[in-house]
């Protein structure tokens, strides 16, 4: 079904390329015996996922993915691999690898089954021109009440949305987080500082016991 929010053939091809890269790298991560190579494959997989985010109009999340996952978590895991030199049996899979593979394949099969047997509320069901223009970012605010601003399509509106972005997400995610999700957002900061302190205490604790 072709609607106002189709991405076009190039985005589709790019999506398949990025997905192939991501899944191939992910398979290397779980099967590679050399942990250093597994970390590199993990970083590749993260880059592929970031590409998928960009193709799905989630530019902000794509940038965050590159910064946090590729830039921080991969490096953190690489440091862990380098610090812990005991890698003799690093690549060994456990005895229950067959059961694990069967469980993973069953999960994948059920995901595919449910996916193709569900009638998802499609974006193409949006028919109101103001709503289409809003999703395309082609709108102006008509009332000044900032909490419940009413929007109107401007310019080409819905027609310009054809093949375009769903929402200019990177300019709306900020107001969305600050206005409507401010409490969980601040709580997230608390969680991060708690995790930081917790990690330091876990690392330090043993050393103090040894000294005592």
């Amino acid at each position: 079904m072709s609607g106002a929010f189709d991405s076009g053939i190039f985005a589709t091809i790019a999506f398949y390329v990025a997905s192939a890269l991501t899944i191939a790298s992910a398979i290397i991560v779980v099967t590679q015996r050399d942990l250093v190579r597994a970390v590199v494959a993990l970083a590749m997989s993260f880059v592929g996922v970031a590409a998928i985010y960009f193709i799905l109009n989630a530019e902000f999340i794509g940038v965050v993915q590159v910064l946090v996952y590729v830039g921080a978590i991969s490096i953190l895991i690489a440091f862990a691999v380098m610090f812990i030199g005991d890698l003799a049996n690093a690549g060994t899979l456990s005895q229950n690898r067959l059961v694990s593979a069967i469980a993973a394949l069953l999960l994948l099969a059920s995901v595919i089954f449910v996916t193709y047997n569900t009638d998802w509320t499609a974006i193409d069901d949006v028919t109101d021109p103001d709503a289409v223009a809003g999703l395309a970012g082609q709108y102006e605010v008509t009332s000044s009440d900032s909490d419940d601003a009413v929007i109107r399509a401007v310019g080409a509106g819905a027609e310009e949305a054809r093949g375009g972005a769903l929402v200019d997400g990177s300019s709306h995610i900020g107001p969305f987080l600050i206005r409507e999700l401010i409490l969980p957002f601040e709580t997230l900061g608390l969680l991060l500082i708690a995790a930081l302190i917790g990690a330091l205490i876990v690392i330090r604790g043993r050393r103090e016991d040894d000294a005592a």
Partner: protein
Amino acid sequence: MTLEIVLVVAGALFSIGLFGVLARRNIIAVIMSLELMFNGVLVAAIGFSRFTVPAALVGASGDITESAVRASLTGHAFAVFVISIAAAETALALALVFAFYRAKQSVEITDASEMKN
């Protein structure tokens, strides 16, 4: 490109991660597989955000509010929170791995079967 194929990719990523978590013996490799599972969930969240819309916009006839349009970014906000929590969790997990390695001189997950020490 449809929502279905995005969800299949997300499910594949999650399943590969699940296999790694179940079958790997090295704790660091298990953490890497956990990250893959996180990414699978996030791809699904972003896919939903891209291909489905808030109920307020489907068949709407009255005024459309800006907050209703912004609600289509719920999946993005979800991803922001999950990425932050996953980063915190990874840092803490690797700290625990270091502590465990100091105590047992091992990173085998089968050696982590007792709570003492």
